[in-house]
C-alpha cells in the first residue's frame, strides 16, 4: 500500500517531471546550512562579515583600552597593560576640562542646528514661490557645501581677524575703528566658529526641506487654499506638521555631524583661547594624539557614544512611534 502525503522522488519524477533531477539534500553540514540560507543572503554574507569585523573588533579593542592604562609610550603591548576597571571613566567624569568640552559640544550643536534649520526651512519655503529661478537659486545656495571644511575654517579665520573685513564693515557702520579680537576672546570666539559652520551647512538643511516640501500631499494644500487659508496658516497648520518627521531626521543628521566637528575649530582657534572653544573632538585630539593617553580617550569616546545614543533615540522616538502606529494600522487593515 502506498503511503499518502510524501511521495518519493522517483514517483514524482516519473509522474510530474520525468526529467527533474533528484532533489534530495546531499550529505554534509555545510551544504545543509547552505541549503537553509537563501542564495541572495549567501552572496552578501562575506561583505557583512568583513564589515562586522571592522566594526566589532575595533569596538572591542576600544572597550579593553578604556578599562586599562595604556599609552604607546609605555612600550608594552595593549594586552599587557594594567587593568584599571572604571577608573578612566570616573576620572573623566570628574575632570572639568572634559565636562566643559562635552557641554560646549552640545551648546554648539544646539545653536548651530536650530539656526541652520530656521535658515534652511525659511529659504525652502521662499524657494517654493520663486518657481522661474528655482534651479538657479538652489545652485547658488548649495555652493558653500562644496567647500572643504578646512577652506571654510581658513576663510572665516581671515574674515574675523582683528584687522579683517568683518571688523572693517562694523567700523564703517559705527563710523569709528572697531578692532575687536574675535578669535582670541574667551567669551566670543565660539560664535565665529558657529557662523562658519552654519554658513557651510545650512544648504544641507535647505535641500532636505525642499525635498520634504515637494513630497507634501498637494490635495491638502489645495483644499486649504480653496477654503481661504492664508500662506502663514498653510505653513503653520499644514506644512510644518506634515514636515515634522523630515525636520526630525534633518536635526538628527546635522547633530551627528556637528558632534564630529573638528576641522573648522582647529583651523580657527585650535580650541583656544585656553580651552574656550574646545569641543569634545579637539579635546580627544589633544589628549589622545598629542599626549598619547589612548586609554583615557577611549573611555571618553564611549561616554560620548552613550550620551549621543540616549539623546538621538529620544529625538527619534516620536518618529519611530509614528512608524509603529502606521504599521499596526496596515496590519489591521489587512
Amino acid at each position, binding site marked *: 500500500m502506498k503511503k499518502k502525503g510524501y511521495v518519493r522522488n522517483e514517483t514524482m519524477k516519473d509522474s510530474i517531471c520525468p526529467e527533474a533531477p533528484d532533489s534530495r539534500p546531499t550529505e554534509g553540514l555545510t551544504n545543509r546550512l547552505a541549503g537553509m540560507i537563501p542564495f541572495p543572503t549567501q552572496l552578501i554574507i562575506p561583505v557583512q562579515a568583513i564589515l562586522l569585523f571592522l566594526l566589532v573588533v575595533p569596538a572591542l579593542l576600544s572597550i579593553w583600552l578604556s578599562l586599562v592604562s595604556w599609552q*604607546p*609610550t609605555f612600550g608594552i603591548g595593549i594586552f599587557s597593560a594594567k587593568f584599571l576597571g572604571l577608573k578612566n571613566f570616573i576620572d573623566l567624569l570628574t575632570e572639568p576640562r572634559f565636562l566643559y568640552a562635552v557641554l560646549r559640544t552640545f551648546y554648539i550643536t544646539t545653536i548651530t542646528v536650530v539656526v541652520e534649520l530656521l535658515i534652511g526651512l525659511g529659504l525652502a519655503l521662499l524657494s517654493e514661490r520663486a518657481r522661474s529661478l528655482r534651479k538657479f537659486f538652489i545652485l547658488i545656495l548649495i555652493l558653500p557645501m562644496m567647500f572643504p571644511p578646512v577652506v571654510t575654517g581658513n576663510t572665516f579665520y581671515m574674515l574675523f581677524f582683528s584687522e579683517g573685513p568683518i571688523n572693517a564693515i562694523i567700523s564703517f557702520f559705527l563710523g569709528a575703528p572697531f578692532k575687536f579680537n574675535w*578669535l*582670541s576672546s574667551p567669551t566670543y570666539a565660539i560664535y565665529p566658529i558657529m557662523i562658519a559652520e552654519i554658513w557651510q551647512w545650512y544648504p544641507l538643511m535647505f535641500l532636505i526641506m525642499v525635498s520634504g516640501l515637494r513630497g507634501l500631499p498637494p490635495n491638502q494644500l489645495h483644499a486649504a487654499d480653496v477654503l481661504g487659508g492664508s500662506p502663514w496658516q498653510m505653513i503653520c497648520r499644514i506644512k510644518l506638521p506634515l514636515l515634522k518627521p523630515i525636520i526630525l531626521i534633518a536635526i538628527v543628521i546635522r547633530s551627528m555631524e556637528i558632534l564630529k566637528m573638528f576641522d573648522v575649530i582647529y583651523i580657527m582657534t585650535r580650541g*583656544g*583661547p*585656553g580651552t574656550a572653544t574646545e569641543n569634545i573632538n579637539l579635546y580627544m585630539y589633544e589628549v589622545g594624539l*598629542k599626549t598619547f593617553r589612548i586609554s583615557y580617550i577611549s573611555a571618553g569616546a564611549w561616554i560620548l557614544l552613550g550620551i549621543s545614543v540616549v539623546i538621538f533615540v529620544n529625538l527619534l522616538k516620536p518618529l519611530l512611534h509614528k512608524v509603529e502606529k502606521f504599521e499596526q494600522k496596515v496590519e489591521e487593515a489587512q
Partner: protein
Amino acid sequence: MKKEEHRRAYEMNRRQFIKLAGASGLATLSSSSLLGLGSLTPAHAEVVGKNAEERAIKAVLELKKKMKGDTLNLMVPAGGEGQFMMAQPWWEEATGIKVKYMIVPLAQLGSKAMNLAVTRSSKIDMIFINPYGIPDMVDGKLALDITDYVKKYNPELTGPNGVIEPLYLFAMYNGKLYGLTCDTDVNSLYVRRDWLEDADNQKAFEDKFGYPLRVPVLYKEYFDQIKFFTNPTKGTYGAWIYASPYYAKWEFLRLLTPKGVLPFDKDMNAQIAGPEGVEALRELIGQKDYLHPGCFTGGWDHAFKAYAEGKIWCTLTWPALIKYCNFPEYSKIVGNIKICPVPGNKLEDGTIFRPCQFTYGFSYSVSRYSKNPEIAYLYSQWMHSPTISSKIVPTTQGGFIDPYRYNHFTKELLEGYDPVHWEDVKEALMTNAANSYPEIQMKGGEEYMSELDRNVIAAFQGLKKPEEALRETAKVWEEITERFGREGQKKQWNFLTSCYGPSLRKAMNLPDPPAWVKTLG
C-alpha cells in the same frame, strides 16, 4: 715536499719575524700619536676616514652588500624636504642607494611617528623629528639608540667643525643618544635696525627713560622699548610675542628661566608657582597693550608675515625670520632687521644671565624597525656631516635646517641670511645657541607643556589670576609626575638639565653631563 723545503716556504724565520714585529710596532705608535693631533678621531673610533662624510660613504659601500632592498625611506615634515632633495643626487651617486620621502604635516609628525611605533612598521628608516619628540619615540620603542654608531663612525659632534655645544646634547635621553641634532632653532631677538639707529628715536627714548636706546641687554630695557615703540596713531606695535595656543608656554618659560628658576627642582617638584613664576607671568601679561593684535591667534607664519610688514619693533622667534625679512618678494623691511642675543636678567651675584630657548628644532633619528638601521644612521651622519651640511643649510629651496656647526658660520653661508650684516647673524646665533636650553623634553613632556600652555593663555585672557593659573598647572604637573613615577622622572629631569649650555649650568648650579659625552664623535 721535504721538511726543509716546507720550513723555508711556510715558516717565518727570525729576520722576517723582527721585520714584522717592527712594522706592527711602528704602525701602532704612529697611529696612536695621530690620535693626539686631531680631536676628530677619538680613541674608540673603529672606522677611519678623512671626515664624517667620507667615513659614512665608506661604511655604506661596505654594508650595501648586505642591504635589504635598495632604498631608504625617510619621514620628513612638509616644508623640510627641500634640503633633503637637494642632497639626494649626491647621495645616490656616491652610494647607489635611492631615497624616498614620506612627507607629513609638521603638526602630525609626532602622531605619525607613534603610529609607526604601535604598528612596528619597517616602512620608515629615518625620521626627521624635533628632539622634543625623542623621549616619546624612545619610550614607544621606535627610536634607535645610536650611541654605539656614533662612537664607531664619528660624526664630528665636537671639534673645530663640531655642533655648537650644547645642541648635540638635546637629542640625548636617559644617558643615550637617539638623534643627531641638526638645527639651531634658538629663539633669538630681532629688532628694527632703522628704528634703532634713528636719531630722533634715540633722543626721544633717552629723554623718556633716562638711558640710551640700544639692543636690550636686560628685560627691563626690552619692556621699556616695547612701550616706547607702540604708537596707535602711527599703527606701530612694540612687539610680536606668541600669545596663541601651543606657543604661549614658550613665552612664559622664556621669562621664567632668566630669573634663574627652572620648571622643576632636582626632586621634580614644580617651581613655576613660586614668586618668580608669578612675576614672569605678570610680565608676560603686562605686555598685552604693546603687542600686535595678531599675536593672540597667529602662529609663526603669521608672525613672520606681520613682522615683514614693518609695523613691529621687535620679536623673539626662529632664525628663519632673518631670511624671510630680507627677501624682497615678501618683506617691506629688507636690510632693516637686526638679529641679537636675547635679553636676560641680573642675578643676585650681579651676573647678567641671558639663557636662550631652543624650541622645536630637528634631528635625524633612526627607526629601530628599519631593515637597514646602520645604513639609515650612516645616511643621517652623511647629511649631518660638516661638508654636506654646509652645502644644504644655505639653500633657499626650502628646509628647516639652520646653521648648527662651527664651520657653518662663514661669510659665504651667512650672507644667505643677511648679505650685509652677516656678522650680526654669526654673533647672535652662536651666542644664543651656546646659552640655549631645550623644552621639557622627557616622558610626559607634551602633557606638562600643554597644561602650562592652557593656563598661561587663561591668565593672559583674564580668565584666571596668574597665581591661580600657575598653582593649577603645578598641581596637574604633580599628578603627571606621580602617574609616570617620580623616581624615573627625577632621573630624566636631572639628566636633561645636565645638557643645558655651560653658562646656564654655572648660573643655576646644574650638574655637568657625563664625562663620556665629551668623547662622542
